[in-house]
């Protein structure tokens, strides 16, 4: 990390100056990341890193306290048969479950992330979004995953979206703010890049692709464009912003491609849970399976890994 002081910008940036995105070129580049061959030590290190970057998530209308406790148990005991495993980065739940998660995780070094701001649609008045954020933080959430108002963004009401993010950021206090762009609804990569720039200038600590409720969720092209926006913002202000692709990343192989993309776009400074997260529910078990295979040379059945 450089020793530059972070420059805090609070004004809405001129989005017309954001460099355009050529979709064909982006797809070509992301295909190229996937040709990297990650083997042996490099693969082992990657698998461990992926585990440590996971936000283990349950965001269902049918969630119960019991379900959340199970998830927290899993977060602490990923696979005790394999010694030396890291914890996942965080457990991600609805605001009403923050207290439950907090208690279940106890002293373990695992954050509680809470979605807020009328997740997943974001269709609520601002004061309700702010209240919801405050409640989640008061319950003990370390991180808030908010959604942007996509309708307003697509209508060109950038000021409205900017102010909303800034207001939620303020409500977050010390909690980290992840801003979900819901890229599956933004229709173009140009929009993704502009929304990323807007969110970062408004105070996002992380930018995140998706709620997981809309298809497509995270894709490599979308994540790549967001990483480039983070790079440009860093160059401009000296402030590092984190990245969280969420939804649709369920295999180790794909997650490793994401790490390659991260490494070759932002460099090594971003390669930790502080700056990169995977929002996923089923990825952890696939990673564990791969680790077991790397350790023993054989694949075990999925039934040997707990499903919570």
């Amino acid at each position, binding site marked *: 990390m450089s020793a530059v002081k972070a420059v805090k910008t609070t004004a809405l940036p001129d989005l017309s100056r954001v460099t355009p995105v050529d979709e*064909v070129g982006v797809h070509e580049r992301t295909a190229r990341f996937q040709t990297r061959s990650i*083997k042996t030590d*490099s693969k082992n290190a990657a698998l461990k890193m992926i585990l440590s970057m996971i936000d283990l998530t349950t965001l269902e209308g049918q969630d119960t306290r019991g379900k959340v406790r199970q998830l927290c148990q899993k977060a602490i005991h990923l696979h005790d048969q394999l010694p030396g495993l890291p914890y996942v980065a965080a457990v991600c739940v609805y605001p009403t479950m923050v207290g439950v998660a907090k208690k279940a995780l106890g002293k373990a070094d695992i954050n509680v992330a809470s979605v807020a701001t009328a997740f997943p649609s974001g269709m609520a008045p601002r004061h309700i979004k702010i209240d919801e954020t405050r409640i989640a933080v008061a319950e003990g959430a370390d991180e808030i995953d908010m959604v942007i108002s996509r309708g307003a963004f697509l209508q060109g009401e950038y000021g409205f979206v900017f102010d909303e993010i800034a207001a939620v950021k303020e409500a977050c206090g010390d909690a980290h703010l992840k801003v979900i762009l819901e890229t599956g609804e933004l229709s173009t990569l140009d929009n993704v890049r502009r929304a990323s720039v807007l969110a970062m200038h408004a105070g996002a600590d992380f930018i995140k692709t998706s709620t997981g409720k809309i298809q497509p969720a995270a894709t490599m092209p979308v994540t790549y464009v967001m990483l*480039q926006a983070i790079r440009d913002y860093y*160059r401009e202000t*000296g402030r590092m912003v984190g990245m969280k692709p969420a939804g649709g990343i369920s295999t180790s192989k794909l997650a490793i491609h994401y*790490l390659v993309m991260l490494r070759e776009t932002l*460099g090594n*400074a971003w390669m930790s849970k502080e700056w990169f997260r995977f929002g996923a529910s089923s990825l952890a078990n696939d990673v564990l399976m791969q680790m077991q295979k790397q350790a023993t040379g054989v694949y075990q059945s999925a039934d040997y890994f707990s499903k919570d």
Partner: protein
Amino acid sequence: MDTQVTKLAFDGGWEYAPAPESTDHIHIDKQYELFIGGKFVVPVEGGYFNTVNPATEKKLSRVALATDADVDKAVAAARKAFNGPWSKMKAAERGKYIFRIARILQERAREFSVIESLDGGKPIRESRDIDIPLAAAHFFYYAGWADKLEYAYPGRQPAALGVAGQIIPWNFPLLMAAWKIAPALACGNTVVLKPAETTPLTALKLAEVIQDAGLPPGVVNIITGAGETGSALVDHDDVDKVAFTGSTGVGRSIMKSIAGSGKKYTLELGGKAANIIFADAALDQAVEGIVNGIFFNQGHVCCAGSRLLVQESVADEVIARLKDRMETLIVGDPLDKNTDIGAINSKAQLARIKSYLKIGEEEGAEMHQSSCPVPDKGYWCRPTIFTGVAQSNRIVQEEIFGPVLAIQSFRTLEEGLTKANNTQYGLSGGIWTDKGAKIFKMTQGVRAGVIWANTFNKFDPTSPFGGYKESGVGREGGLHGLGAYLNLES
């Protein structure tokens, strides 16, 4: 934008472990003979030369040196095959043989990729994903034309020329062989092909494929040797058509030597293409295009984008992005699947590139190279860019044929166009802008055979390729590529 304080770090941390492609499945003979009349035959004068792996400097094999007497034999074999079975065969039958070559190449793609990388130094990713599949695609494409020549030239009677003497370069050995052999055969000609002396192995392996495909003896002959073998072939009285890909200097002497002989010819020569980047371009994708344009195949590409013209207002930004991107390029073992830039093809070529680096610095240009480590043994050159150069710099005017980019800026479209065209070459060009109208204006103005818009170095058998000015004469590929191997005057 201050690029100094917020530097991204690409070294250290999580690294990629070596991922070498296996070589267990390939076989390279200790010695290769000349492929004449369907058989491998010992050279008349008994000379041989070594071919080495430029990444290790180790000898791979010993290859026959063809002299005048061998060229005679090869041309005679080609003539006999032309007069005999080949010109009398039904066109559809001819097509079947070419399809067969294409299919065998596909089946043996992995083996060909590894040998191409071993002999020439190019990264396995490129030989695996580009060279070999594209070579097979050329055979497939021209195989389809064999029985449709009358449809290509309605109202005329296309006739084969006879014996084609073909000389190919070392930068895309198998692919260039395919570019030359496929249309020649489709049009009913027979062939004597000479691969470059530093990269003969895949052509000799292709000779095996041609045997396996059961082509009548003499339809394709492959003779190895250096420049002298090439000129003996070009000068041979019984050659009807000369096809050459290589340097402009050699191309010029070929034109001189065949002047007045009535031989048909196509020459695909050097280039000094400009990638032209406008301020409104998608800059990150443009940077990918620059990288692909100049660092693909170590810059050993005649249509490489070896000049970068970038609009003034985004010049610093583009250069900063380019420098970051260069840091992520992996230079090293061509057989490693993660290698982006392999070995320089030969000791001589490395010396040539280095001499240009020196010239660039002596002319006062500012040189920047990526910081990646390179192996001790072998021939290597880090990706290099020069800034602060003018049209009059030699590194702007002359073809370096290495991973070396000369960067200039321009203010107006007209200035960009003038600079792009102010070169003795005219092989290719790249235009980067978000505005369609600008693309059309530029493509009409740039005098080059191939112009890519918002992309670079894209090849397809259906698309013609060739140069303006000193970049060459004639077109290869596509429908145009047929005309070069046909007599359309009758």
